[in-house]
């Protein structure tokens, strides 16, 4: 009954990888634990390729299918190539508001239909808006697949939103801004990190601005649906207990008749200029109990060959109990209570983030120094080969772990189609992890993780002295 807090959601999110496997080969298990290999040095683990089929309907709708009968459920994702970066001018946050309105009913369904179609049969439904995409997804017992395809096609074609509905939902979205950005102690930290962008619309973030949302009208809603919610701007991903021939026939029946509009789809063409000097932002939070720091570095788009190397660097810095930031900032010096690293690879050039929250008695400046020292090590020293192997194993294992479910496989494929531009990146990324060398790590760190390419957010508490631990 309680919506998850921001803290919960971003603690979980780093595990959501786009890469994955649908059908995995059985790996041999030694018959005796006495023969267990030593805990460290081992040969790299292999990554079995994903098996998926893709096609495009005449109206431009892309379809990706994975047949997997291990569980009697099916995941349905309908992902649109539109996100926060595509918000209309002076309407920051609109793509996210629009996502909420997609649950408000159509000419054929009542507003609560999505819960009736999913939760009532033992499934669930949800959606999210990212900087690049908006993804709607459901998981249901597989005998309900056709009903969900009908419902998704229906809201692609027939969304009906009236004024009272619109006004109510806008209030909900603005209420969430208050809760997640203002009331959450570190909510503003992530928003400020968008200051890494001077020109590109990524600078606005996804949650946007309450003032601009309040200026939005029902006409904006209609225009946005017409502009972006169309078959040639969407992918349907189906994963699970399905018969591909039958599933394809249903997709054709319900999505095939949707018309491809003549008007072209507007695309973001702004190019962020190369950064030549470090940017620094300081912010005094009213409700953060302890100072924090965030450093963001510009990196290339998801389609780049350096993307997988950045993932491995993310693992070296931030994944697991032995990660470099944890070891240096938490275990050895105790300047931080939480650390975080994220290769935020996007459709257009993204950012590599490192973040830390201080312990009592330490300043955001201490954190910036400590984070900077760990980034400098990547540039100045060659990563030991056993540590690099550890990071690769962690990345691949994390992918396998997260993608146990049909839901996660479908979400990963949907993101790969629009963010990477190719579902085959599901295979390219993990296989590329295996080939990353110490030289790659150093080369990529020297190229992107530089002082002049960074934006530093120093997040201060309102009072000069940080409080001690809670009693």
């Amino acid at each position: 009954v309680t919506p998850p807090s921001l803290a919960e959601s971003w603690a979980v999110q780093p595990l959501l990888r786009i890469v994955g496997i649908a059908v995995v080969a059985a790996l041999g298990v030694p018959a005796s634990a006495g023969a267990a290999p030593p805990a460290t040095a081992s040969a790299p683990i292999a990554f079995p390729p994903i098996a998926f089929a893709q096609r495009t309907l005449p109206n431009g709708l892309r379809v990706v299918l994975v047949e997997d009968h291990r569980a009697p459920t099916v995941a349905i994702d309908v992902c649109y190539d539109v996100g926060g970066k595509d918000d209309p001018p002076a309407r920051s946050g609109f793509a996210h508001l629009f996502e909420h309105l997609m649950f408000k009913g159509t000419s054929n369904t009542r507003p609560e239909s999505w819960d009736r179609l999913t939760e009532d049969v033992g499934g669930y439904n949800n959606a999210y808006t990212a900087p690049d995409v908006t993804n709607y997804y459901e998981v249901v017992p597989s005998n309900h697949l056709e009903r969900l395809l009908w419902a998704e096609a229906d809201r692609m074609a027939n969304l009906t939103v009236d004024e009272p509905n619109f006004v109510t939902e806008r209030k909900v979205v603005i209420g969430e801004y208050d809760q997640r950005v203002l009331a959450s102690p570190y909510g503003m930290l992530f928003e400020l990190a968008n200051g890494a962008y001077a020109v590109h619309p990524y600078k606005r973030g996804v949650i946007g601005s309450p003032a601009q949302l309040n200026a939005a009208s029902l006409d904006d809603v209609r225009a946005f649906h017409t502009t972006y919610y169309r078959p040639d701007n969407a992918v349907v991903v189906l994963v699970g207990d399905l018969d591909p021939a039958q599933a394809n026939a249903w997709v054709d029946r319900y999505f095939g008749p949707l018309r491809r509009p003549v008007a072209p789809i507007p695309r973001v063409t702004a190019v962020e200029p190369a950064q030549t000097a470090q940017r620094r932002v300081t912010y005094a939070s009213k409700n953060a109990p302890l100072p924090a720091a965030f450093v963001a570095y510009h990196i290339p788009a998801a389609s780049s060959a350096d993307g997988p190397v950045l993932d491995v660097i993310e693992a070296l810095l931030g994944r697991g109990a032995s990660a470099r930031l944890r070891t240096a900032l938490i275990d050895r010096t105790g300047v931080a209570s939480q650390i975080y690293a994220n290769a935020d690879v996007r459709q257009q050039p993204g950012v590599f983030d490192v973040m830390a929250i201080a312990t009592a008695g330490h300043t955001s400046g201490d954190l910036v120094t400590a984070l900077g020292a760990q980034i400098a090590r990547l540039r100045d020293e060659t990563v030991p080969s056993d540590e690099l192997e550890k990071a690769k194993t962690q990345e691949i294992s994390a992918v396998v772990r997260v993608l146990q479910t049909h839901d996660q496989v479908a979400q990963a494929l949907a993101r790969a189609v629009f963010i990477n531009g190719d579902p085959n990146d599901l295979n390219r990324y993990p296989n590329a992890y295996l080939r990353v060398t110490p030289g790659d790590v150093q080369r990529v760190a020297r190229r992107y993780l530089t002082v002049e390419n960074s934006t530093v957010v120093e997040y201060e508490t309102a009072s000069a002295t940080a409080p001690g631990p809670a009693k």
Partner: protein
Amino acid sequence: VTRGLARAALAAAVVLAAGGVARAQQNIVAPGATSTPPPPGPARTVRYPLPVATTLPNGLRVVAVRIPGSALVAADLVIPGGSIADPDAAPGVASLTVSLLARGTAHRSAREIAIAEDALGATLDGRASADRSEVTTDAVAARFPAALALLADAVREPAFAPDEIVLAKQRATSSVALQSSSPAALASLVAQRALFGNAFGRPGSGTARSIAAIERDQIVAYHRAYYRPNGAVLAIGGDLSAADAFALARGAFGDWNAPGAALPPAPAPLAAKPRVVVVDQPAAGRTAVVVAHLAPVRSAPNYAVASATNAMLSGYSGRLNAEIRIKRGLSYGAGSTFTSGLYAGTFVASTLVEHAKVPEALDVMLSTIGSLGGPEPPSAEELSVRRTSLLGGQASMIESTTGLVRVVAGNAFNGLPVDELDALTAQLDAVDANAIARFAKTALSTPPTIVLVGDASKFIDAVRKEHPGVQVVKASDLDLTSATLTR
């Protein structure tokens, strides 16, 4: 790889609230042709993997479950005891003990364990609940034997180094403080406390005060008494044969000696007199409303009917959400949670409402819960929807190896047969509306325990009129280690 991450997560979590307030009734303008959804196909028969069990000479019960096609192998070791076995003066010992297992052993420092875990790409986690502790690991198949060996070292020979205890206590204290700041989390802890007059009511994580008082000797003594093969259950699941799983279990735990002393007997739950408690938390954004009852234990013959009864009240179309959210717009959601262990079970119905709406929300919750065994027994159609929801949710657990292994381990520890997943499905299929009405009449018609956590000034007068015996406690005066709720 490609993620919107914090930003995407932000929006993702946000979306749970999509349609939050007024998804109920409004005018739909119907342009052009309408259509209706196609009917569902015939229901699929769900086949749960059938576990195989054995018992090692030292008494460790081992359950293997084969999950074809799974790249991961997962293990779940369930240890007897739990927070009901905490020393009376030291709630939080079981929880602190499990949190220290991977923080150094006789053979490895905390740092060495961290490196080993990461080098295997494995997870190593633990948690304590009322009647058990659980330690879990998973890894890709080729790395699993070493991961299980690491788990065994952590479980069998933890060092409990004094400096690690200091750090663990700090982490536990922060986590307790965070919980207390949430009205919903706090209300659930207070309800647990108010339902039971003894150890079953205590918070498993302890309180800031009780954690501070815990001594190393108490942790060592707890570990010696409860971390033992006889009485414990180890489940292993993945794409491996039972013979291979048993061999792995023997390799990791075969030489774990059972202690001479018997397992200390567990206390019996002591039901407290139902009461109405208001925890005044003026800073709370909304008030958490909780209505709690005692429920059957997991091995009880009426577990399935209890589970179906809970399903009638829970979920999107369940009665609580229908009455509170859909019909009246009092809250974003309402539901009921049925928790059932070896010795005790609870039904906890909850919602979050604006402070001033508390009296109305409480009335609706009480009458809705009472309706099943009274004026409005379930209809066959209503039961069919809720049962489909319950069974569908159960079937989806097959998707995840780690999730399935946890359920298999829990069932074995609760003394249930290896085919419990199929058996429970059949029992749920057989539950009829009359059985639910009969069950609700006894189980949900006793006076409930009511807990309200929020800004009491906005609702206390109205609540007092209906419930003159209400106990009001300031959040700052609350002591969850005491059955009276105050020091």
